[in-house]
């Protein structure tokens, strides 16, 4: 056992004690409140004369008790004291582990379950079933292929400036670790030893159909894993649009810049 285990273990115990102590204080208050209440209520409801008629003890230490046999003054106190001590002990032992409002017996995401064999409370889709609204029957949108099975060279929805901006953001999150922000394939992960992906800025890649790029993101290609689980469908298309924009930007000449903006280039060619 290492030192930190000992310290850590003690911290857990100490934390439980702190919690127990604070509950103890409130429990004490509650008990004394209850006892006082019983006494005052008893007096108010039954006047001393009535007690005497019933043959019960009436005095400083009297409380309402169902059995009125005992007339000796003493037995009352020990009973109450032992009950209070028992309550306190119960409070002490129980409070430290009572966290059931913090950790309710229900499944929040990723909470384990002892019910299923794999220990997961989140269940995968049963094979052959389709969740409502997830039929994904729009071939062009979900596969990037036309009715003839060939990759589309169009987009399944209009590409606006917002779509490209979204694509840029998503590209920088999911693709740039390998492909680099410019698409040349020198990303950080590649510099750490991952296989070098081809640069986007070759004729071979420029000639690929949009649907083909979409398919690579969806299903992976070569060393590249699939990203279907990480990137939703429309975002994948947005990334394709941004890849196209990147390719344009890296293969553009001054003539592609509108005449009125050329002065901003600072003489670059």
């Amino acid at each position: 056992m290492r030192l930190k285990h000992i310290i850590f273990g003690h911290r857990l115990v100490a934390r439980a004690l702190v919690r127990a102590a604070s509950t103890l204080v409130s429990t004490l208050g509650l008990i004394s409140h209850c006892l006082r209440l019983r006494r005052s209520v008893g007096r108010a409801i039954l006047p001393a004369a009535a007690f005497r008629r019933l043959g019960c003890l009436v005095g400083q230490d009297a409380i309402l008790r169902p059995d009125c046999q005992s007339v000796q003054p003493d037995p009352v106190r020990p009973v109450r004291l032992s009950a209070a001590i028992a309550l306190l002990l119960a409070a002490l032992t129980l409070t430290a582990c009572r966290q059931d409002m913090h950790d309710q017996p229900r499944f929040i995401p990723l909470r384990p379950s002892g019910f299923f064999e794999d220990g997961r409370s989140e269940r995968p889709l049963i094979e052959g079933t389709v969740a409502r609204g997830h039929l994904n029957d729009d071939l062009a949108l979900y596969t990037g292929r036309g009715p003839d099975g060939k990759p589309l060279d169009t987009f399944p929805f209009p590409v606006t400036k917002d779509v490209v901006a979204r694509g840029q953001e998503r590209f920088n999150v999911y693709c740039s670790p390998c492909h680099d922000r410019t698409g040349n394939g020198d990303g950080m992960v590649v510099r750490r030893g991952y296989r070098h992906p081809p640069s986007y800025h070759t004729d071979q890649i420029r000639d690929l159909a949009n649907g083909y790029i979409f398919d690579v993101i969806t299903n992976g290609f070569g060393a590249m894993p699939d990203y279907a689980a990480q990137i939703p469908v429309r975002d994948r298309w947005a990334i394709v649009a941004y890849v196209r924009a990147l390719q344009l930007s890296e293969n553009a000449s001054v003539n592609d810049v509108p005449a009125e903006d050329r002065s901003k280039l600072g003489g670059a060619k």
Partner: protein
Amino acid sequence: MSQIFHRSTNTFARITIFGAVFVLAFVTWAFTELDRSTYNTRATEAREQPVPFSHAHHVGGIGLDCRYCHTTVETSSFANIPPTKTCMNCHSQIWLTSPTLEPVRASFRENKSLDWIRVNDLPDFVYFNHSIHINKGVGCETCHGRVDKMPLTWQENSLQMEWCLNCHRHPEKFVRPREFITTMGYQPAGGQEEIGQRLVHEYNIQDARLLTSCSTCHR
């Protein structure tokens, strides 16, 4: 029969009654301080994990965006812990033989979940939704701290109600533009007060009365 107590005990009794006020005040103060202490909240305490995953390396070193792994943070109440598949995206080729990563490979081979230890755990009686915070301009860093500097992950803040209310009372002091949501070490371009006010308006952030209503978080 002589007196049991000396006369001076009268004074002693009076002082004790007077002192009780201070004793009670001290006990109350001590309890609140203990309750707030990192010792009790376990903030800043790095947790041991089945694999010593380092955010400092992945975020600070490689520069991965939070959302590369925590993909659902913008759309769901829960910022998911990535499946082993996400680890294997890179570690199928990098650090292939590292014994440290054996639990990850075993998890992938045998289709068994890695038992990560939860670091930020709100009580179950608190409703919390990540996506609304992200979409209203509360950066990851605002609550989780400089994750890019955490070799092992720890909880940055107390996660106590008074801490939540700090921001729910004055969101303008904390919100940032959405494009910097995952930025670590964000510095506002200008005065935070001014930018915050603008964003609160632009993102339709509710006023403090609604944000601090009981049923906003306890529903």
